[in-house]
């Protein structure tokens, strides 16, 4: 049996069944946690397209999601249309910013460390810009965002708003999984592997390094931009602080690394673990930052290959399951 083909359907079915088993009516606490879990899984998988595939460490996930959010919300209010109509525009705006940054970085042949410092500077500049643009973002205090609803679906299915939002995230994550799978199993994946291993020899064999890196950057930031408008639906409002480095990027990075880069399941497993740890620490909220700091150190020193790879290697070693396991 070829597991590769069933990897995504299995994940989607399991994730789609979660609300049936765990969500309870009137208890938004649980559905909120599961929705946040999908939010981080999607962001981490998007980052994998840039960081995992082409070694471009983009540390402005939060800011990019902010660009997607504010573009979509502002467009909707200027044009007087529903937020549904402008989500794609938000994603495109985010994707264009990402593509330009990655294109310039690739043209200037910036290495992974310079890209990380460059994007973290951009991230901080973006947050300050959001703070300064009070007319659009409501400044420090934030603003309410129009709700994304679909009466027809929610009333037929008997879903609560958060359940609907959960399935919206699942739809987005599924689309991203399909894109990720397609990219890594086509000529793009081959080019990404070559670029990651040796950029110079990739270029010398005719791989358009700059174009591929810019494209990977576009795909990653496009999806991050799409996540933004859904993210602010959880609370119904948006503040610039919600897109901060410490709020988004740090967790997304931990999730990607703990789950495993260059795998489809990695971000999902990582997000499940980190969201669980975060919940378990609710009782000891004040120790949260400490625990995540310690995790970051230990993960990067000892666990850089991630749980999914670790489990796969273990299974391959012990039970000789080589071809039968999903990645």
């Amino acid at each position: 049996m070829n597991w590769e083909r069933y990897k995504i359907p299995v994940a989607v079915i399991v994730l789609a069944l979660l609300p049936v088993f765990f969500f309870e009516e009137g208890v938004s606490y649980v559905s909120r946690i599961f929705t946040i879990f999908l939010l981080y899984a999607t962001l981490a998988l998007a980052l994998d397209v840039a960081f995992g595939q082409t070694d471009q460490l983009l540390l402005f996930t939060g800011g990019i999601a902010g660009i997607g959010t504010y573009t979509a919300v502002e467009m909707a209010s200027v044009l007087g249309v529903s937020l549904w109509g402008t989500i794609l525009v938000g994603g495109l705006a985010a994707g264009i910013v990402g593509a330009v940054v990655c294109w310039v970085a690739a043209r200037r042949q910036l290495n992974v460390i310079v890209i990380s410092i460059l994007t973290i500077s951009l991230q901080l500049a973006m947050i300050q810009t959001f703070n300064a643009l009070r007319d659009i973002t409501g400044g420090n205090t934030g603003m309410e965002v129009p709700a994304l609803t679909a009466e027809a679906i929610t009333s037929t299915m008997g879903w609560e708003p958060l359940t609907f939002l959960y399935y919206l995230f699942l739809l987005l994550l599924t689309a991203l999984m399909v894109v990720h799978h397609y990219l890594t199993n086509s000529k793009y994946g081959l080019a990404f592997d070559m670029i990651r291993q040796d950029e110079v020899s990739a270029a010398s064999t005719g791989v358009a390094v700059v174009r591929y890196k810019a494209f990977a950057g576009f795909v990653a930031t496009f999806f991050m931009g799409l996540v933004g408008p859904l993210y602010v639906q959880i609370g119904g409002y948006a503040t610039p602080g919600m897109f901060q480095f410490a709020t988004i990027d740090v967790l997304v990075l931990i999730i990607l690394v703990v789950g495993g880069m260059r795998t489809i399941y990695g971000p999902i497993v990582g997000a499940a673990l980190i969201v669980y740890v975060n919940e378990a620490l609710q009782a000891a909220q004040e120790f949260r930052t400490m625990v995540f700091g310690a995790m970051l150190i230990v993960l990067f020193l000892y666990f850089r290959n991630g749980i999914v790879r670790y489990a796969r290697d273990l299974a391959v070693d012990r039970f000789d399951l080589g071809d039968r396991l999903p990645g």
Partner: protein
Amino acid sequence: MAVGARLLIGLLVDGISSGLILAMLGLGITLVFGLGGVLNLAIGIFSLLGIVLVMEATGLVGNVFVGVLVALVAVGLVSLAVDRSLLSLVYRSEGQERTLIGIFGTLGLAFFLEGALILRYPDVYSIPAEIELLRVAGIVIRGSSLVSIALGLVVFGLLYVFFDRTYMGQATRTVMQDEVGATLCGIDTRQLRTFVFVLSAVVAALAGMLYSFTGEVGVASSFQLTINAVIVSVVGGVTSITGTVVAGLILGIITTYADAFVGAYFAAIALFSVAIVVLLVRPGEIGA
């Protein structure tokens, strides 16, 4: 003299003071990166550690100068422990991988220490120096800025003597230029890295203390200090000591004027924009 000119001169003094503080922080990044390829993203937390320790120690002893000394020694010991444990593990890998592990290791350390400090120090703090406003020829100058400048100049004077006259200082510059050559000359690189890391943490703590003369600082703003330090170091060329000092002064003056005339948000945006442009135009050593 016109009121405008007086205001500009008053702001220039503030700008130089903030520039010297930025230069002290940036120097810590530059030295540690130049010697070992580790971008120390925990440097801001050492500044905050310095501030809260001065207050604790001053409370116990009753004398600010003794308090400052105790705090500097304590920060030195903490950074020594970090160097022996975390950085020893980071130095086991090589090249770009070491830089990456260094970034995330020190970022984790920054979050860990920030989380630990905020448990006990949730507020904003400033060291009560009780320095008044001065009026020179009609120009209003903040006394705290003058004290910061004076102390900053003393620190840089000492650092100059260290790098120019002492064996350790010359060895540090040698390793930054050519590690293999330095090793062949019998310089113990690892020992030097330990010394320079502790030095950078102590200078950062001093910078934090000077910073808290001019305003209140909270533990949560330590990451902002780190980012400013990284930007100063990057703009200065990452491995150039002189470049870092000049970059710190220029950025301090630019942000002080931007802060006064177009607002705090735009001052921050200006700082990041300078960094972004410099990274794109001249990535320097860090891009090698």
